[in-house]
């Protein structure tokens, strides 16, 4: 303790000696509040430049006919026409439905499986640390690697997934076309996302379970509460804020799902896996309809922001119970 203190003091002395007198004089004249602003200012400037300015710029562009690939063309205001086009476009609504389908099912599966795994890991059985590490591996991989890896697994002729399903069900491997079949392709993506991100949900749930004090369970034991009763009356309610936090994070992330879908199906077959982010990317960076794409981005932003806000309020209520 003393040694570290003396190191800090020496470092402070050295820094003070090295600071030019002109700077020392200026800093001495500043109030604590001014110094606080001085430290915060770079972060605020960065935030304004990287987050706020592009957002304001996108809002402006959403009311124009601007196309990024025609920088020399006159930019004209179009009022609410871009928003009208976006909100009446059947493709946009189909993409939103597809996205909602993904978000719903990935959240349901990841929450149920993630919480179950966390509950089992929390039992601290022999080798639980090893299994925790194994379960976490998919989450550590790059989505690009995961996408390509699963594309091969789903391959009807050589893929392990088709082989395993065929072995279990007796259906010929050539008929198990996970990525080419309209009804299976959305599930193919849901399976991959669940495989990759369930460990993340598990980690958050595990943190929740570990935060429950042991004495509550001891008191329940004294009251002769059954294991089932303890689970529903103590474990689930006390872990609920953590579960809801995991749902919030995964919901926002999956609303933006892009890389996995692009790698696995490219939005196909047809448009059954074309999620909102792919439609947006196509409008913005392939069609270069920058104004319309900006309007679409704003609509998405408002939808996510609005839903997240409602959800956070619900989360706070749960925490306050």
């Amino acid at each position, binding site marked *: 303790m003393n040694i570290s203190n003396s190191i800090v003091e020496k470092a402070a002395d050295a820094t003070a000696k090295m600071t030019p007198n002109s700077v020392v004089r200026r800093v001495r004249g500043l109030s604590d509040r001014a110094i606080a602003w001085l430290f915060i200012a770079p972060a605020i400037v960065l935030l304004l430049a990287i987050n706020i300015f592009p957002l304001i710029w996108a809002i402006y562009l959403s009311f124009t006919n601007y196309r*990024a*690939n*025609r*920088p*020399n063309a006159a930019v004209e205001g179009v009022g609410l026409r871009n928003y009208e086009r976006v909100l009446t476009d059947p*493709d946009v609504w189909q993409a939103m439905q597809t996205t909602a389908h993904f978000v719903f099912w990935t959240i349901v599966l990841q929450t149920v499986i993630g919480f179950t795994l966390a509950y089992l890991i929390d039992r601290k059985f022999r080798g639980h640390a090893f299994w925790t590490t194994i379960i976490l591996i998919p989450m550590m991989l790059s989505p690009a690697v995961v996408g390509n890896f699963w594309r091969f697994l*789903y*391959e*009807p*002729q050589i893929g392990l997934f088709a082989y395993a399903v065929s072995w279990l069900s007796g259906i010929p*491997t*050539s*008929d198990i*076309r996970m*990525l*080419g079949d*309209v009804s299976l392709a959305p599930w193919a993506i849901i399976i991959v996302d669940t495989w990759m991100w369930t460990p993340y949900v598990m980690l958050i749930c595990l943190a929740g379970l570990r935060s429950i004090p042991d004495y509550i369970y001891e008191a329940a034991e004294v009251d002769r509460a059954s294991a089932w009763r303890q689970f529903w009356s103590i474990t689930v309610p006390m872990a609920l804020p953590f579960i809801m936090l995991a749902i919030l994070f995964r919901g926002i992330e999956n609303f933006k799902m892009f890389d996995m879908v*692009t790698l696995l*199906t*490219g*939005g*196909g*077959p*047809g*448009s*059954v896996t074309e999620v909102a982010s792919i439609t947006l990317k*196509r409008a913005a*960076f*392939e*069609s*270069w*309809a920058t104004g319309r794409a900006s309007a679409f981005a704003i609509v998405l932003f408002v939808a996510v922001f609005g839903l997240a806000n409602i959800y956070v309020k619900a989360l706070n209520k749960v925490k306050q119970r």
Partner: protein
Amino acid sequence: MQKKSKALLGLASALMLSSALPNLAKADELTLCWAAWDPANALVELSKDFSAKTGTTMKFEFVPWTSYADRFLNELNSHGKLCDLIIGDSQWIGGSAENGHYVKLNDFFDKEGIKMDDFVPATVVGYSEWPKNTPNYWALPAMGDVVGWTYRKDWFERPELKKEFKEKYGWDLAAPKTYDQLKQIAEFFQKREIDGKTVYGASIYTERGSEGITMGATNVLYDWGFQYDNPKKPYEMEGFVNSPDAVKGLEFYKSLYDCCTPPGSSNVYMVESADAFKSGQVAMQMNFAFTWPGLYKDEKVGGDRIGFFPNPAEKAHFAQLGGQGISVVSYSDKKDGALQYIKWFAQPDVQAKWWELGGFSCLNSVVNAPGFAGSQPYAQAFLDSMAIVKDFWAEPSYASLLQAMQKRVHNYVVAGNGTAQEALDGLVKDWTQVFEDDGKI
């Protein structure tokens, strides 16, 4: 103190000088941007002659096909200086010309005596001209390419298969001349066991994300009578894009997909199609001609085992154009050097060597030379194919037009939603909207 200052000044000067030296050396350096594929490697080899002759170092920026358009169109739209020369896709010509990305080459061609009549006419229209069929040149035809077919000649020549085929269909098993024949062959080979392995009929383009299924479907649709618009009234698409013949063509493409492709062929483009052929999965393969030299050299399926044929005919006879022209990027600081490269590249002897190395020259003196057809096993098929080419829209909004077709066609052919008539009617609607947005109708 003064000595110290002088020493520091000297050090700083030396550092500045040393950092400036590489810039001086880079003045004679040109960057050429293209897709990362076999012909690009041939161009690297070819360009060594240019460097030896002029002392200009050639740098290459090659991007995989999957991100080629995204990467370089972003570069052009942001007025980037990365590329001095670019070999841009044929569809980019309209947008690149109208948005000022490419240098107009008419004056340069006139000054240097480069005549567009010296190049295969279809490639001049496809790769160089905007507006189409007008003498406004934005590129020099660089890499001729077209969708054609390869087949397993060794399987076709097996006596027992020939006999069985003749008995079943009543004609000799050989490279098909019509689509009916192509489908019969594909059906014949579908799920057949050859050398202890299950094989399939044909690999065709079905890719959803970029342009794959459009390149494949149009290749077939043209032959049934599909037209982009009324030849007498531009942008009038009703009755041309969705004509009864076009509908039949699209129905045929779907039937070919359903009957005769390997399982899991829902997202196939150039690489996947070549892989299906190389791995001995399919009897026939639809692919751009650029893949042919590599496949011919392949140890397992190349040499005597492979044959080549142009797109079969039906009511009409066309093939989907691929390929690119080479352009000078208007944002480059080295436009003069880039023009010198084009001047060098246009020379007949350089073009002849380009063909030898694996590039597909578009120069008449090369492709019409007496020995050309016999110079490579695929040369005749290439010549025949280039004689029947037709290209997708090259409008500035080609990407929106392409996206619409990708969606409509994939929805019908692969996903099996709706009918061919509905798909093409929807396409007319989408394309009309794009041209209305552009103020063209």
